[in-house]
Each structure stands twice: as C-alpha cells, then as structure tokens.
C-alpha cells in the first residue's frame, strides 16, 4: 500500500518535473526565433505598410503622411486595373486550374502504380521541383521561342505559327509548368492512401470506373487538391520571375510591377501599395476558396 503510494507520488513529481523542465527549456529557446521573426519579418512588413501610406518625392526618402494616394492611384486607374490587377487574377487562377488538371492525371497514374514502380517517375517530378525556376523557364524559352521545336512541329502539322513567347499565353504556360509539381506531389500521397476496399465496394454495387472516380476517389482526394492548388495559386499570384523572363515586359503581373516600381522607378511608396494590395488580394482569394471548399464539402457529406 505504502509502496504504491510512494510510487504514485514519484510518478506525479516526475511528470511535474518533466513538464517544468521541458517548458523551461522551451520558453527560453523559443525566444530567439520569435524575436528573429518579429524583427526581420513583422517589423519590415509594418514598415512596408507605413511606406505605402507615405508621400513620394523624387530624390528624398518617403515621408509618412498617412496618405491613401498610392492605393487610390492603383485601384482607380483603368491602366493598372486592367494591365496589372486583372492580368494577375486571370493568369494565377487559370494556371492553377490547368496545373490541377495536368497534375491530377499524373498523380492519379503514379498512385495507381504498384509502390515499387512509383520511385523513378516520382523522383523525376521531385527533381523538376528541385531545379531552379530560372533554369526551367530558360528551357521553356528555348522550346517555345520563334523557330524553336514547338514552332517547327506546328509548321509540320500545318497549324498557324502563333507567337507564344512574350505573350500572355507564354506566361500562362510558364506558370502552369512551374506549378504542376507542387500539385502532383501532395496528391500522390493522398490518392495512394485511399483504401482500395472503398473502390471495390463502389464497383460491387455496379458503379463503373467514372462513377467510382467521381463518387469515391475524387472526394477523398480533396485535401490533396486543396493543398496543391493553394500552393500553386499563392506562388503564381506572386509570380515575378516568370512574367519577367517570359512576358518580355508586355505581360505585367503585380509582383513584377512592385519590383519595377521599387528597383527601377525608385517609387517605394507606390511599390509598397501594390505589394500590400497583392498580399491582401491573394489572402482574400485564398479565404474565399477555402470557404467555398468547406461549404461544398459539408453539403457533400
């Protein structure tokens, strides 16, 4: 009796000690990363907001006056609304949809393979993800340029040799290409984890492959679809290297425009206003998307 009691007491004391020690270690060791994030992320972002509310004069640093002129300039001028805002929304949404279509097919195929045969093809997708974006765009560039392979093939099969590079179509292809691996990889895991018994059950009650796919596989793969499309969308809405290298200055997306305003025009307040607008826009579209997904998901259940 007393032995059990003392054992219990040790246990209680032991657990208390463990938690305290762990928290002591934790609290102090989490301090540095937290300060780091505050100093080098939140303060600069706050600074950027302040800059976007400052007046711009050539040759002098921005002066904080609380003005909304830069936001007004961006959100009322049809030039910016059409060239930057609309192009950004259109290209990022379209590229996400196409990346999902292309990525889903590939992920489904890989997930249906026996596990030992998935390795090579998966690693090729991972390699393409691990290769620098500038290099991948460069490869697309060689392929799509006037007189390149795609043009020659178009000529051979008698299609008109439309210009692809330095057009919106070129930028769209670039955005899709960069986004596909981000969609494929989370989907492989999610689709492969679906219990085959569920599909067999659907088949046993007479569903064909299409029915089974839409009633079983696709709904169960939705978490992977959401994860992949969210990464693809946030990356593409903020795309900067792709419009810069494949748009030839003609296709303007907001991330690139913010860079140009800051680095070339030296207009930091306007660049900041574009940047903050882009961030809010991207968060807003993400929130709407998640809201719609969760609602449809609930009605499906």
């Amino acid at each position, binding site marked *: 009796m007393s032995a059990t009691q003392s054992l219990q007491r*040790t*246990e209680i004391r*032991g657990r208390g*000690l*463990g938690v305290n020690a*762990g928290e*002591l270690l*934790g609290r102090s060791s*989490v301090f540095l990363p*937290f300060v*780091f*994030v505050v100093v*080098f*992320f*939140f303060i*600069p*972002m706050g*600074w*950027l907001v302040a*800059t976007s509310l400052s007046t711009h004069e050539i040759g002098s*640093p921005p002066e904080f006056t609380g003005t909304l002129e830069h936001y007004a300039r961006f959100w009322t001028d049809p030039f910016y609304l059409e060239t930057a805002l609309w192009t950004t929304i259109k290209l990022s949404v379209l590229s996400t949809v196409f990346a999902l279509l292309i990525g889903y097919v*590939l992920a489904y*195929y*890989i997930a249906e393979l026996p596990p030992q045969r998935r*390795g090579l093809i998966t*690693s*090729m*997708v*991972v*390699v*393409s993800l*691990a*290769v*620098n*974006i*500038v*290099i*991948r765009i*460069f*490869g697309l*560039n*060689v392929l799509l340029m006037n007189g390149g*392979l795609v043009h020659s093939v178009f000529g051979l099969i008698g299609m008109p040799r439309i210009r692809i590079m330095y057009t919106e179509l070129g930028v769209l292809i670039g955005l899709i*290409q960069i986004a*596909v691996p981000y969609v494929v*990889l*989370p989907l492989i*895991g999610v689709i492969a*984890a679906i219990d085959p018994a569920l599909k067999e059950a659907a088949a046993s009650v007479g569903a064909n*492959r299409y029915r089974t796919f839409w009633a079983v596989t696709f709904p169960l793969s939705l978490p992977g679809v959401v994860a992949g499309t969210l990464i693809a969308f946030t990356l593409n809405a*903020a795309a*900067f*290297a792709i419009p810069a290298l494949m748009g030839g200055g003609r296709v303007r997306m907001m991330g690139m425009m*913010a*860079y140009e305003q800051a680095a070339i025009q030296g207009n930091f307040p306007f660049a*900041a206003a574009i*940047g*903050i607008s882009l*961030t809010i826009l*991207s968060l807003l579209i993400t929130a709407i998307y998640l809201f719609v997904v969760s609602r449809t998901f609930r009605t499906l259940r």
Partner: protein
Amino acid sequence: MAAASHNLNRSTFRLRLPTGLEIAAFCSFIFVVAPLIVVAGSALNADSMTFPPRSLSLKWMVMALTEGSFVNGAMVSLVVALVSASVSTLFALPVALVLRRMSPAVGRVLTLSFMGPLLVPSVIFALALYQVMMYIFGLTNLFVLMIGHIIITMPYPVRTITAVTENLDPALEDAASSIGATPWRTFLSITLPLIKPGVIAGFLFAFITSWNDFSVSIFLTPRELQPLPIKIYEYLLYQYRPIIAAVSTWSVIGSAIIVIAIDRLVGLNVFTGRRA
C-alpha cells in the same frame, strides 16, 4: 454464359481505359520534365543554341566548370542555402516542441506568426526587408540575404517537425525525466531520435527553397556575391549562348544528386506526404 460475357466486357473495359489515362499521364509527365530535357540537349550543342542540337559537343559542359563567375555563383548559393536551412531548422526545433505543450490559443498565434512568411508573397517580403535594411545600414550584404532566406524557409521545418511531434507520446519524455535525466539528456536521447524524420525533411525543404529562391535574392543580393539563379537570370537578359545551358545542366545534375540523397536518407515520401 451471360455472366461470362459480362466478365469479358468488364475486362476489355478495364484494358481500354488505362490507355487513355496512360497517354494523358505521359503527356503530363513530358510537360513536367520537358524544360530539363531541353536544357540538357541545348548544352550539348556544338555552336549555336538550338533544340534538338544539330551537332554534339561537350565543350560547353567543360567550359561551364571553368567559368569563374558561375562557379562563384554556385558557391554563394550553396553557402547561403546551407546556412539558412541550418539556422531555420535550429529555430524551428524549439518552436515546434513548445507549440505542442502550449494552450491551443497561444499555440495558434505562435504558429501563425511563424507561418506568416508563407502568406506574404516572397517578393513583397523582400521589398519590405530591403527597404528597412537600406534605411538602417544603407546597403545589403550576404548576411541580409541569409536573413531573408531564413525567414522564407522557416515555415517548412516548423511544419514538418510539428507534424512528427503531434504523434509523439509525452509519456516517453516524462519517463526519462522521472528517472533523473536532465532536460538536455531527455531531448538528445528521447525526443530528437523520435522527431528525426521531420527534422531532416524540414532541413531539406528549407535547403531546396533557398537554393531555388529568386524573388528574395533579386532584392537582397549584394552586387559582388550573386547566387547562381541571379547570375543565370542576368546572363539570360543580355546573352544567349550554349554555355548558359551547360551551367544550367550542371545545376540540374546537382539537384538530381540532392534528390537521390534525400531518397536514400529519408525516402521520397517526405515530398508526397506519405508515412513510410
């Protein structure tokens, strides 16, 4: 008889459909890897840059290795990626471990603050950091570049390590402390081995993110120490010779080696999110 013909129908049905899927999957796969094939093909050109190459030569591949500017860029990229991935993993460790023991409300705020960099486009964050650094120091240097990379890479180890700590049984650590192990001893001999897959995966994600980064580097990079992506970008803006394809091909080979290493060390499941 009827049953047999039904079966036959089903099996032909099954045989035909995968071919459609296979063709579509093959096209998707080609689309994913096409740029890499094109870059490698262009690097083997003898004189001008075309794909498919007209006459083959390895001279550009050799020349790329002796071109000081690109080798220098690769070294800068490598050092920046190693340092920022290590620091962000070290920072992420206590964050992920503490989040687990915190009340849900506090934990959520903390997670959000460390995931914040994922929600802001990296080019916009880079603009913000650039402005502050220019205001305070009037210049950017390699340290500032590394700080930028640590911020954008930190969400990955925080997420991968948090994912493994969720499955961690606190009783194991408590057991170690109850028999008198110091917190450090408990951490090193109990916690760390259990969360190792998450730590490695987080480090590798951070490394790849830093190695591939373009938008943060273009703002924060110092003139004389440009990482490889910026070097290639600036070269492509003005010139178009096979040497840039050769440099790119070496970089692709480097990435492939890293991926093979990841496969050997922890398996490619870290990318597809499957538990090994």
